[in-house]
């Protein structure tokens, strides 16, 4: 009876994997807000209201220059949005946030009001990894939230395996690393060794504010302020943690699998 009931139950549920990316993406929570947009033209003269409220010092304003927001440092707490008297910083509601170059997360210069989304790997790497990407995950001073939402991608709702992407147990089996955490000094050696153990060509993906720039722990002497201190990074996915949709969007974008 047990097996019969279990099978019947699964049949009733049907396929629980989401239609995305062929269909619409799952909706973000209404209070999520998505990526940020900065329009320095709207800033009041000499106003620096957003600067001191940012917990991770992601916002700077040098006198005579436009306000600058670094989405790599941002933990998306929205304190700046509440502090801004002129709505120069706004939420776009967009889940896509992954970029290839660190500077593509810097907002504020003319024409750079929003982040510049990642382009796909070059043709050679796309041919190698595009339909089969094996990643070794390394948590190096992560808080287990980025790790948890990476893990979620493996569940039946997201089913990462359908894209040929899989997390493997050994760096020897991997095509690259997915790194979370601010990179604690105590993990520096292990991260370096894991990277060296992956055969070339290899890619590195930094997931979350910590892995990009140290997140809330940036500046603590016990951390190295992100993965780039130890290894070269090919894809940055912001958030604290990034929503699973943001992570998946980034992976698919890198592999050139989004239209």
């Amino acid at each position, binding site marked *: 009876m047990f097996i019969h009931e279990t099978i019947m139950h699964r049949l009733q549920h049907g396929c629980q994997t989401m239609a995305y990316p062929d269909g619409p993406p799952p909706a973000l929570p209404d209070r*999520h807000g998505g990526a940020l947009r900065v329009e320095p033209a709207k800033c009041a003269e000499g106003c620096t209201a957003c600067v001191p409220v940012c*917990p991770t010092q992601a916002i700077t304003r040098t006198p005579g220059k436009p306000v600058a927001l670094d989405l790599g440092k941002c933990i998306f707490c929205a304190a700046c949005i509440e502090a801004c008297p002129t709505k120069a910083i706004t939420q776009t509601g967009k889940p896509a946030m992954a970029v290839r170059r660190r500077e593509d997360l810097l907002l504020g210069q003319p024409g750079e009001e929003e982040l510049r989304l990642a382009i796909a790997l070059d043709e050679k790497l796309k041919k190698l990894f595009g339909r089969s990407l094996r990643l070794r995950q*390394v948590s190096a*001073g992560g808080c*287990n939230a980025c790790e948890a939402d990476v893990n979620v991608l493996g569940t039946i709702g997201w089913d990462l395996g359908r894209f040929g992407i899989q997390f493997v147990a050994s760096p020897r089996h991997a095509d690259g690393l997915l790194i979370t955490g601010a990179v604690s000094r105590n993990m520096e050696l292990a991260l370096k060794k894991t990277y060296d153990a992956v055969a070339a060509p290899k890619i590195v993906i930094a997931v979350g504010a910590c892995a990009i720039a140290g997140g809330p722990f940036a500046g603590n002497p016990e951390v190295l302020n992100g993965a780039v201190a130890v290894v070269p990074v090919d894809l940055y996915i912001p958030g*604290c943690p990034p929503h699973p949709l943001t992570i998946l969007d980034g992976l698919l974008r890198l592999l050139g699998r989004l239209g």
Partner: protein
Amino acid sequence: MNPPREFLLLSNGTGVPWADVPEWPVDEFITATAAGLERGGRLCAWFGVPENSATRLVAVIAFDAENTLAVGRSAPVAKSYPSLTLLHPQAHLFEREVWEQHGLVPEGHPWLKPVRRQNGGHPAVGEFFRVEGGEIHEVSVGPVHAGVIEPGHFRFQCNGEDVLHLEIALGYQHRGVEDALAGGPHRATMSQMETAAGDTTIGHATAYATILESLAGTEAPLRAQWLRAIALELERLANHTGDLGALANDVAFLPTSSACGKIRGDFLNLTALLCGNRFGRGLVRPGGCKFDLETERAAELLGKLRVALVEVNQAAEWLWEANSVRTRFEFTGTISSGLAAEIGLVGLAARASGLVRDVRFDHPAGWHRFAPVPVAVWPGGDVFARARMRWLEIQRSARFIEEQLAAPAEGGVFSGLAASAGDTLAVALVEGWRGEVCHVALTDAAGKFRRYKIVDASFHNWAGLALAMRGQAISDFPICNKSFNLSYCGFDL
């Protein structure tokens, strides 16, 4: 002057003037602490406070049956003191930590080595306990593990398949959380508290907010306390559900594994419904909550909660009915109630060994003063008991949320905070999903943090996992590990 006779009593979520905390010469302080533990106390926190070139020891003891906490301190000590661990093993890691942080040697400590910091190029490793003999082999695992999980190092001493001894060396996730709090609160402090152990964001954020509120001589608006209590149970639901799935996965029982993976995400989405973040970041703030739960949103929450609860109950039923699962879970990784008490286990691991130990019940603060939570307990202390505890608590948490949603507190969710009182010691305990989250703050004359101590449930419980593995087959390590599911970063800080 005669030394004081008793520790100073206080309740959870309150502060006392530092000058009122009774002080003993260090030898007598150890005796007084041991006496408190002997009459049923439990060591919540044990830490050093630097003073000039010496260090004061501070003990926070919980008397669960009397619903009260007690605090005492030693006179400044420069070099060493007689180890408390010899009398009460639950102090073993605290004494190692104080030695590492302040250089005070607990004389007679049986296994004095670093806890988390850099030590000759490698964190926390040093010498391992070794079993000698021609038949003995050593298995070394980590810091990088096989799955998408945090780093730590496990060293097994094995005779064939049997584990004689397991030593767990952590520290790889050390981010300097406590050091960064000195002189605070700082701009990043709230975010650092929310990420001290990221799967316990609500637990740690609530403890921190409670500390600041008690230092300001106030409390959060009732509606904020109500909302925090709901969020705390959502956090428990998500993690317990995920753990049931992970336990099922480790015995290759895929129906429950795949169902729970998805349902866990559904619970995380309920937290995101509150504040936009699946882990509850941005919800709890000193002085209240940043978001309210309006009537319509509450109705949506309740509807989705009920759907997820039906699904998780179905998935759990498969687990309990499968003989193949029971035979792996039962009598595996057993911790007796006596051993659990001796090593100071907290949270669901303690309750799964039959101990009635739950901050929401024993030391109610915040909304739990008005909405008591019955303590779920299961005897046995094995993997099955710890799995079963999760299922029991899933029932209680869901019921609690339903009851609270039916009777919301009125009013606003946020009020401003006065400045923190100077030279004050405040203690806040929260029953996070793993167990007790303990924050202790001591302010300087200006009301800034002179010392801030964080004790995650994992700090107490890692020793439980090590002992649970004694006499087990090494192949049972994954399910023993998952049955505790302890935090690396919450321990490493």
